[in-house]
């Protein structure tokens, strides 16, 4: 069997020799996926915007971005397969070969690495016998080095199918992967009650909720440190002024008196046809299209011309030749 047409849901999604998904979906599957794809496209004013979620959908079906999945997206969006592949290869969450049931990501960006992420990485690579972007032979786990995942106050962090496992140690991370391989449910520290599979996760990322948003905590202990400290000390932001006072404050540009009862003519310009469009009020002096970000800077910097820089460049050039 060199070409597998169907991967039954729930089967290990690891690298299966010969599994290529090179031919298309069967009619029933394509019909089901096309209905999902139509739902995704309907969320956007232009259908091409549906491509990223649609690639997540393909991963939900095949466990990776398969050739048939690329062909499916291309057909749905009237693109070439090359155009779809160009996008799929840009983003790290799209897998080019069958992914394990669980992606285990160890943050090895600077802060997590320093706090112990490197040690966790060493432990897991040795324990699982796989390296970055490799899958265990049982198809359970794909191990990844990951970049900062916005949980630095819980460093070192491990993500399993992009759920948070905070404040990890080599021993705790090892226990997590052992349980995953045994098929025992594993609960993240901040997230759903248990980790779902890679395919289930991919379907959520395609924008199809799994009804688990209300599971888990609202915030972990580090998230709450400031909130609770402020309560303990009695620190508060300034009180909101009382509503009457505030309403008196706010009719700066001479429009309809703020705070007046809503009436038909006060109905504003949500459709862009209003009498006082944003951007035309007094005081809005910056020109449309003018520089708007401090990240914008001219292509030349003062250091291009400074004597110090010239000297440094000369020294560097010398060093290169030495």
């Amino acid at each position, binding site marked *: 069997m060199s070409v597998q047409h169907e991967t039954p849901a729930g089967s290990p999604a690891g690298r299966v020799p010969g599994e290529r998904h090179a031919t298309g979906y069967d009619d029933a599957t394509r019909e089901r996926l096309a209905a999902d794809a139509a739902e995704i496209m309907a969320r956007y004013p232009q259908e091409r915007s549906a491509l990223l979620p649609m690639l997540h959908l393909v991963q939900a079906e095949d466990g990776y971005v398969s050739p048939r999945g690329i062909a499916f997206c291309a057909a749905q969006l009237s693109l070439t397969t090359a155009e779809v592949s160009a996008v799929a290869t840009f983003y790290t*969450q799209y897998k080019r070969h069958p992914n394990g049931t669980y992606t285990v*990501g160890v943050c090895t960006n600077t802060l997590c690495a320093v706090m112990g992420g490197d040690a966790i990485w060493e432990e897991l690579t040795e324990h699982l016998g796989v390296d970055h972007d490799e899958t265990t032979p049982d198809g359970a786990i794909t191990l990844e080095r990951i*970049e*900062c995942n916005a949980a*630095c106050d819980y460093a070192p962090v491990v993500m399993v199918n992009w759920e948070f496992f905070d404040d990890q140690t080599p021993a705790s991370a090892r226990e997590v992967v052992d349980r995953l391989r045994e098929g025992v449910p594993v609960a993240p520290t901040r997230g759903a009650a248990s980790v779902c599979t890679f395919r289930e996760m991919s379907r959520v990322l395609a924008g199809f909720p799994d009804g688990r948003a209300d599971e888990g905590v609202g915030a972990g202990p580090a998230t709450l440190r400031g909130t609770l400290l402020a309560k303990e000390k009695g620190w508060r932001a300034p009180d909101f002024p009382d509503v009457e006072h505030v309403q008196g404050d706010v009719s700066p540009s001479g429009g309809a008196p703020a705070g007046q009862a809503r009436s038909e003519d006060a109905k504003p310009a*949500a459709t862009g046809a209003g009498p006082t469009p*944003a951007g035309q009020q007094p005081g809005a002096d910056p020109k449309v299209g003018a520089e708007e*970000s401090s990240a914008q800077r001219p292509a030349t910097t003062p250091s291009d011309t400074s004597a110090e820089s010239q000297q*440094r460049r000369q020294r560097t050039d010398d060093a290169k030749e030495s």
Partner: protein
Amino acid sequence: MTTLAPVLSAHWDADRSWTLATYEDNGGYRGLRRALNMQPADIVTMVKESGLRGRGGAGFPTGMKWGFLPAPDGGPRYLVVNADESEPGTCKDIPLMMASPQALVEGVAITSYAIGCTHAFIYVRGEVLHVYRRMLRAVEEAYEAGYLGKDILGTGVDLDVTVHAGAGAYICGEETALLDSLEGLRGQPRLKPPFPAVAGLYARPTVVNNVESVASVPGILVGGASWFTSMGTERSAGHGLFSLSGHVERPGQYEAPLGITLRELLDMAGGVRAGHQLKFWTPGGSSTPIFTAEHLDVPLDYESVGKAGSMLGTRALQIFDETVSVVRAVTRWMAFYKHESCGKCTPCREGTYWLLQVLQRIEAGQGTSGDIDLLLDLCDNILGRSFCALGDGATSPVTSAVQYFREEFEAGTHTPADVLFPPERSARFEYTPRRRTQLAGVHA
């Protein structure tokens, strides 16, 4: 002494804090009701007067950004919320959306009304599954309650909101790359001008705002501009989330007026971990030049941090004590920039690759006498020579680390960093490293 001022984080400890019911019980959606009684232009003015500046890093005045939109021409205008939080060290928007997603939804509704947008997008990075679940559910709840959808609260105002998941790319936090990604393309920055205000999503006028910026809008609507400016400094008004991480006793989120100092925040967080001293820190993520103990009293507002030679950025305060090799830290950051450079601009694509190679040999104790100058020269050839700020950001840790800790780079010509600074001394737990002196941060 400056104290904390929880606004966005005030009710994160509430039972089921993420639900609409909890949000309403704590005063939620008063801001939207008030906004719908106002003229859109007056809301823009109010936010301008509040002095709210972008909380995503650049610090551009939010109200002014809204004001850049050209006059309505009858076609669509868009709000896109940048929820692609990925800057190393930055961890404020993700917990905000997990604990209190309705604050963002309310901010989206108000902002959309103010700029005349009827379809807004929230671009959440794809690597935070539960946060994406919470945002989807929050938007669904807001529709059910009539805060979104057709004829919001009976005012005739319409707004649809789409929550979109990314797929793993730091560069998509750059606003024009984010727009390309949202259009279903590779996430690469666009040449500006035209700016998104003129030609953004689908080449239509678009406002791109950070999560915390948008979530701060409802409070301004309820409290008024003067309430907001009663916090912070004259040019850096209001409250902001300060995220302490690393070698600090009680890491976490501390919401305070802008202008608070690291010394004050460290006091609240129990100080640097016991028995150790502060060595270096980032004021706003890895792309902002590092600071040292001499900067403990710099007020953390846009102007003061800039004057001291760095940037306020995202207020991601990563704390490193004396056990940490600055060479190791910078090398690992460079591995990140090299990995995440989108490849569009040669100076960034090739420069980060070169910088990493040079840094790796310094980390391994195999640097040459010319390597420090070579690093600085490479930085000179990246800074200001790429479309977006990624390349610029990549040079910040290098140039600042050489400025403050040149001797550690010099030591890299003869001694590996992990001999000078054994990594096990920095970790949160005890362990014995298996390998010494390996090249770090190599991505497959």
